[in-house]
């Protein structure tokens, strides 16, 4: 097992280098100068512009810039944001947790919805419940998340006025202890609901088909034959095995969570990484954008690796070679 993990870790290195080269190339050949917004300042002298170019290293050949960027990154230095004038790593750290709240909260919600429905759908295949569940899952997969968000904002935020529709907390008011938590929670409900419900669809389909496969196995028949209660057969013997592939999907869905969160963060003015990325796109803040993308790629890689390892860990049938 230890050997397997180490080998998988080593395999990630060339991929990571490939990702960094590709990302750097995209940014290097992108049109437009990221410092343009600073140059437009009429008080800047040509010398100052030259100094800035040198400070950001934009005057040197591409490969030198790349190696600088890479070695700095290995030391934990992701560069400096041009617009926000702060280190990228600090900015990412600040926003990361609000994004994580949304991402993991919605993942939890998805699982809470998807696994029970998926299991019941599978055990009562072709029942009305199964059809309803399947249609619900398909709708979750097919509805554009931003349209769903608009519907929720319109109904729960504007029509019923039940929930706040933007930000992570009420602006300008400082609440005392229990109320600040409640205030934050209220702000989270709508974005969480949109992400969780749309994410539940594919997880549910996956749980259902995995469960269907498992309950046809011989060992389930054996479990029934030895007189176990149906509940024990399903929830102890079958579910455990059916969840193995779902675990893999969780690892792979880590990047999707962040991807999906981008548009939801923008819609609900959620102060996370996605919105920061969107702003950096609009303002052509290349160092920040590059840093965020590299961070997300790293996260994806970690997710895939975790999925692989946990899969091998949970299922001894997986061969390590």
């Amino acid at each position: 097992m230890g050997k397997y993990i180490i080998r998988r870790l080593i395999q990630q290195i060339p991929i990571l280098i490939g990702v960094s080269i590709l990302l750097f190339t995209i940014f290097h050949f992108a049109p437009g100068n990221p410092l343009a917004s600073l140059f437009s300042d009429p008080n800047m002298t040509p010398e100052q512009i030259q100094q800035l170019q040198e400070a950001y290293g934009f005057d040197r050949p591409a490969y030198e810039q790349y190696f600088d960027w890479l070695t700095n990154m290995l030391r934990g230095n992701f560069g400096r944001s041009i617009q926000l004038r702060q280190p990228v790593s600090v900015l990412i750290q600040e926003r990361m947790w609000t994004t994580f709240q949304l991402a993991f909260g919605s993942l939890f919600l998805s699982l809470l919805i998807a696994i029970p429905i998926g299991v019941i759908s599978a055990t009562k295949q072709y029942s009305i419940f199964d059809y309803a569940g399947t249609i619900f899952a398909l709708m979750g997969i097919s509805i554009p998340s931003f349209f769903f968000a608009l519907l929720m904002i319109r109904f729960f935020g504007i029509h019923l006025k039940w929930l706040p529709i933007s930000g992570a907390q009420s602006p300008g008011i400082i609440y005392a202890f229990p109320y600040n938590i409640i205030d934050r929670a209220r702000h989270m409900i709508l974005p969480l609901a949109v992400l969780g419900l749309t994410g539940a669809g594919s997880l549910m389909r996956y749980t259902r088909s995995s469960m269907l496969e498992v309950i046809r196995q011989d060992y389930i028949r054996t479990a029934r034959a030895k007189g176990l209660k149906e509940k024990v057969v399903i929830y102890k013997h079958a579910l455990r095995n059916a969840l193995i592939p779902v675990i893999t999907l969780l690892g792979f869905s880590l990047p999707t969570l962040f991807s999906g969160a981008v548009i939801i963060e923008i819609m609900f003015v959620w102060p996370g990484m996605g919105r920061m990325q969107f702003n950096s796109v609009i303002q052509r803040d290349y160092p920040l954008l590059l840093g965020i993308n590299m961070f997300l790629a790293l996260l994806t890689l970690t997710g895939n690796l975790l999925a692989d390892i946990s899969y091998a860990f949970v299922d001894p049938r997986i061969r390590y070679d």
Partner: protein
Amino acid sequence: MIKEDKKKKQQVDPNAGAKKEDVMGPWKIIWKRLLKNKLAMVGLATIIVVALLAIFAPYLTPHSPSAVNMAKTNAAPDNVNLLGTDDLGRDYLTRLFYGGRISLTVGLVSTSIRLLIGVTLGGIAGFYGKRVDNFIMRLADIFSCFPFLPIAITVVALLGPSIYNVMLVIGLLGWPGIARIVRGEILSLREREFMEAATALGISDFRKIMKHLLPNTMASIIVSATIGIAAAILTESALSYLGLGVAPPTPTWGNMLRSAENQFTLRFRWWLWIPPGLAIFIVVISLNLLGDGLRDALDPRLKQ
């Protein structure tokens, strides 16, 4: 010679013609199975209707999608403008039809790009194996490392928002999935007896891949292409909604939904944001239904 042989066969077996009808080709079997799947047929019918509405848009509406009428802006639906007008007084239903053209085109073209790259690279990797395979698959790993929407937003923003860039980005980022499927199938097909026969006949690698291996992977390619078109339409709409996709005045369902950024519109002018959103939803769900149906029809073992 051959003609004589044929004649002989006919003489020996006078029922050859009748028997031929009993033997169905694989595609016919699949089609028959698909016909039985009601949900898939509903999906297919819906897609055909939407495609026809988009294609024949100019003949279906008396309005032009870009005709501005400042005397009648943001008007509610009436007898002249069945879905009302937008902020420039353009007929909304007409724009919805024309928007369908763009959304469907983006879906088709970007999926074609994905297929072209994915099938080519997957085919090469699976057929040649070893170092070529290793190289291509690591490349696929690298590409699938990019979180889709963030990198799509980045690249489209760097290249500038346009329909071509959207199609290119979706196509370039999406190929690894297809490549993995094709490679996996070819790896196992390669070892089959009919490939040994092909080698014995001395046909070229190119012909082996094109004529013998790829047709056998068609089933999975079609399924993932169908679902891929749905995903591409969703991505295009999201990018256009963010203002990074297809730029106005060209209508697409995604950038038409931008009107809902206006709180007043979101509140009081349902016709400006519900119809394009529903259009995306209906087309995507139809494509997914068809994709599911195709998967079941192509491989009944998977039907559960």
